[in-house]
Structures are given as structure tokens and as C-alpha cells.
């Protein structure tokens, strides 16, 4: 059974300002995500949620200064970005990147080939992609467009979930997949995530600022993220409490740490 274990993770980012130097963003994160579980991570703007997501995926901008991350006992921090993906980590990005010159269809196939270790059979692959796009209400003409180029915010998010469905990771990290989506798009995207979850083979880390998406995707655990660490953990009821009370209590508690 796939397990992602994050222990006492500390991460800094270069500020680009020589006087300030590196700034610590993550200040000791502990979290274990198992296959089949859904963890919601909720927190105010700037608390470090995306930093956690990018650090797990291996973005070069972030420096790990302490702690460990393992996937089924394997040291994730030792792996390159692509090795992490092939090991079963997937990050749906808050701001997906435009890649000029590369068509979606070419991208998806190259990616699936890398993740699955062999090129998918062309006939079944074309059907698979088409079906997945239809379920996400994506026009099939997207396949011929360049990756994320000129996509609207909502289209980018659908494209991320399309990849999630096709790549079938062990651990999926969804960074604010709900932001910028209208109600219909939120439902479509959530259904996509739920289809993947129903297989019971993925552990999901759902990062969000709002409780809205949790009406569609029911979490097993809710963690409040504030000031670079998990401030409180609980069940789905914690989300209702946050909905009612907001993050004030956590922000004030740790603001000057």
C-alpha cells in the first residue's frame, strides 16, 4: 500500500535580496498520506501550501533544509523531478505552465509513456484520451493546441485533472484545483478527481483555501496549515469549523513566529 510520509520538513526559498538571503517558508511539516485516503490542507494565503506542494514535486526554487519525505520507504528528496513523477507522485498545479510548441496530444503521450514505462498502444490510447476529455467537458480540439497556451484558468485546471486521470498516480497533490472555477466547472473537475479516488488506489492531498470543493470531494482528514506548518488536524468537521470561524485564530497565533 502506497504511503507518503513527510517528517519535520523545513524548506527555504531564496528571496533574491542579499540582505534577507534565504527565507524559511516551511517550518517542520509532519504528514502521512496513505493510498485511498483524502487529506484536505486548508490555510490562509501565503501560509506555505504551494511551497509544500512544489517541494514534494521537487521544484528547483525551493531548498530542503531539514526533514524527510519518503514514498513507500524510498527517499523522495533524493529523486529528480521526473523520477518523483515516475515513482507515483503527481502535482496538479495552482498555476499550470504554458509550453509553446508542444501539443497537448504529444505531451500526454510522451508523459504516459514515461510514467507507464512503455508507449501506450495507439488505438486504445486515442480512445482513452478522448473519453477522458469528454468526461471533463473538454473539446477534443484541445489535443491539437499547445500545452496550456491561451487556455483559460478553468481550462488549465481541467487539463491538470485530465493528466491526473491518465497518469493514475499513487499520490496526487492538488494545489487549489478549485480556485478560479465557476460552479459547473468545479463540479466537472471534482467528478474527475472522484473518479480517480474511487479506484481506491490513490492517496490525495487536496490543498484549498475554501471549503467549497469539500462539498464535492469528501476528505477523510482536514489539516489547518498556518505559518509553515500544520497547526491543527481533524476530521471533516474541522472544515465546517473553519467555514464558520475563518483562519483568524491560527494566523494570529503564529503570525510572528
Amino acid at each position, binding site marked *: 500500500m502506497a504511503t507518503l510520509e513527510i517528517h519535520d520538513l523545513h524548506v527555504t526559498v531564496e528571496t533574491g535580496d542579499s540582505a534577507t538571503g534565504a527565507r524559511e517558508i516551511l517550518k517542520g511539516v509532519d504528514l502521512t498520506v496513505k493510498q485511498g485516503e483524502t487529506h484536505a490542507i486548508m490555510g490562509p494565503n501565503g501560509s506555505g501550501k504551494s511551497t509544500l506542494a512544489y517541494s514534494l*514535486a*521537487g*521544484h*528547483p526554487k525551493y531548498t530542503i533544509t531539514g526533514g524527510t519525505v519518503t514514498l513507500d520507504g524510498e527517499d523522495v528528496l533524493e529523486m*529528480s*523531478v*521526473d523520477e*518523483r*513523477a*515516475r515513482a507515483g507522485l*503527481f*502535482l496538479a*498545479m495552482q498555476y*499550470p*505552465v*504554458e*509550453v*509553446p*510548441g*508542444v*501539443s497537448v496530444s*504529444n*505531451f500526454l503521450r*510522451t*508523459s504516459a509513456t*514515461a*510514467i507507464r514505462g512503455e508507449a501506450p498502444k495507439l488505438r486504445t490510447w486515442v480512445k482513452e484520451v478522448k473519453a477522458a476529455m469528454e468526461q471533463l467537458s473538454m473539446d477534443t480540439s484541445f489535443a491539437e493546441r*499547445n*500545452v496550456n497556451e491561451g487556455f483559460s484558468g478553468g481550462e488549465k485546471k481541467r487539463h491538470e485533472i485530465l*493528466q491526473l486521470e491518465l*497518469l493514475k498516480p499513487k499520490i496526487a497533490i492538488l494545489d487549489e484545483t478549485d480556485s478560479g472555477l465557476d460552479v459547473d466547472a468545479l463540479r466537472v473537475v471534482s467528478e474527475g478527481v472522484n473518479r480517480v479516488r474511487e479506484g481506491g488506489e490513490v492517496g490525495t492531498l487536496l490543498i484549498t483555501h475554501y471549503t467549497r470543493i469539500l462539498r464535492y470531494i469528501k476528505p477523510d482528514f482536514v489539516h489547518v496549515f498556518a505559518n509553515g506548518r500544520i497547526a491543527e488536524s481533524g476530521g471533516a468537521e474541522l472544515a465546517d469549523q473553519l467555514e464558520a470561524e475563518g483562519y483568524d485564530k491560527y494566523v494570529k497565533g503564529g503570525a510572528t513566529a
Partner: protein
Amino acid sequence: MAEAQNIPAGSTTAGAIAVAAESTVATRMSAPPSFDVADFPVPNGREEEWRFTPLARLRGLHDGTAVANGTMKAQIDAPDVVTVESVERGDARIGKAGTPVDRIAAQAFSSFTKATVVTVPKEAVLTEPVRVALHGEGGTTFGHTVFDVQAFAEAVVVIDHTGDGVRAANVDFLVGDGAKLTVVSVQDWDDTAVHVSQHNVLIGRDATFKSIIVTFGGDLVRLHPRVTYAGPGGEAELFGLYFTDAGQHQEHRLLVDHSAPHCKSNVVYKGALQGQDAHAVWIGDVLIEKTAEGTDTYEMNRNLVLTDGARVDSVPNLEIETGEIVGAGHASATGRFDDEQLFYLQSRGIPADEARRLVVRGFFAELVQQIGVDDIEERLLSKIETELQGSV
């Protein structure tokens, strides 16, 4: 309209559509066209047509100090119906397609000893390409070549430049009425070569001309394809791709002069750049004269900057003297393949070198498909691979 994204430091992507009574393309040149080098002042680098070119690296081609002291091995393979002649200066076919417009083209014209004329006779439809292999063996050479593709003939010409040397040349393409000519010109020089060439294309009535210019090598390459139409109904497709490496200067200047009515032109040039002081220049001048009603034209230049330190100057320029046209447009964009794109692709399991390959191949794909000559396409793809290996 011109669009610009993510322009690397120091690069320019300017564009203009001018509606002018009088052509500024013509007035921007420092002297009127001429076959005589003496009619052109020695450039100092501030002239419009020289301002992007590093004169010091021209090995004297621009100031009269270059002397013909080199060897260019030429081999021409052509189907039997094609004739290949070596002719004296003064042959009526020489210079018929166009006149030198700058000092180096005029120098080449004043300095060549014998010209080569390749003729595809009337109505001959070639099933195999005409292949011209030019291999530089050092030193300076001047050349003049005429491809005379007569009425209703159909031909593919592949010109392949390899080796080392300093080369200045004029290449004329006479495309007869109703003829179809495709030209693939590959600049695969050693990294020390200098190559400056003006291409003059004269497109006959209802004739079709297509060119694919592929530039990889050279220390300095400056090509100047110029297209004019001898009658209505002509079509030109000008494609180009270049891969500019550290220290290389690769310049493509184009002119399409629409003087005849109901002609079409479509220009697509794409370049990838990598390495310190890689410099690509693209100038696209399209002129729609008063007499050219019914013109349909589009020009586009795209650049993909793979590393820091590279510079692109891209200047599309469209001048319209008549409103009676089907369409006219231009676009220029320079984007970069950056760490975020690399991260995105890698985060989908794609290794870094493959990610870079994916981006560059995807970028060039539509142009590679245009070549239609299998061995050249394959060579090009493997060349791209090799160039990319150098970058990782």
C-alpha cells in the same frame, strides 16, 4: 499584429504595418540596386541594412579587402533532362531574376569568374531532386548560380553547404509561367565559415515557388531571399528554420515584392537559440504595390530561446499601397524555454533532455514536414538532436 512574449534581455521584436504612398523598404537601403560594387559605399554598421551584422566578422567581404583565394568544391547531381552549364559573365540569364541590393551581393557579382546555369527544360517534371553540394575547402570564394526552371516544369532543388570558407554569392531562381519549384537550402557549415548570399526569385505567371532555408552552421550566415512576381497568379511559400548556437550570427532578411495582382505569399521562419552570444536576426519586408490588387500575404517569425545569453532581433515590416487586397498580416514572437516549463514537463515524468527535445521538435515540426525530401528531413532531425546534446 506583432506580438511579443517573454522577450529575453536585449532582444527586440518590433513590427510595423505602414500604409505608405512611397516605399520605405526601397528608401531604407543605402544605395539603389546595382551590379557594380563601386556603386555601394563601404558600410560602417549604422546603415539600416547592416546595423545587426557584425562587420568585423565578414572577413573583408564588405570593404573590398577579401580576395578570391579559396576553393569551393561543387558537385551537381541531376536527372538527365536537366542541363548544367558553366557560362561566362554576360550570359543573358545571369542577373535576370534580380539585381544586388547591398555591397556584398554586388561584390560577389563583380568578383565571380564563371556562373553555373542549371536548366530544367519546359514541361519537364522531375521525379528526383537536383542536388547541389557545395563543400568549402577554406579561403574566400565568390559565386553565381542560376536555376532556370522553364514554363510548366516541376523541380525540387537541394543546395547543401558544408565545410569551411568565406562565401559570397548570388543565386537566381527563374520560375517560368506555370512552373513549380521547391528549393531546400541547407547551411550546415563548419563553425568558422562565413556565408553571405542574395537569392533572387522571379516567379512567372501562375507559377509556384517554395523554399525551405535551413541554417545550422557558420560563424556568420546572412541570407537575403528576395521574391518578385513577373505576372499575376504567382505563389510563394518561404519557410526557414535556424538553430543558432553560442557565438553564431545567423541573419535572414527577406523581401517579398508584390507588384503583380492576385499573387500570394506566405512566410514562416522559426529559430531556436542556445548559448552565450547566439544571435539571430530576422527581417521580413513585404511590400504590396499599388498595382498588386488581390494580394494575399502573411509573414511570421517565431523564436525559441533555450538558454540565457542569446539574442534575437526580429523585424516584420509590411507596406501596403493598395487597399484592394485579400489579406495581409504579420506576427513575430520570441519566447523562451525556461525552468518553469522544464519543471512542468519533468513533473509529468519526462526526463530533462527529452523535455527539451520535445519542445524543440514540436516547435520545428510544422516546418520539417514542409521539406518533403526524406534524407534531408532525417538529417535535420538528427542535427537538432546533436545540437541539443551540446546544450545539456
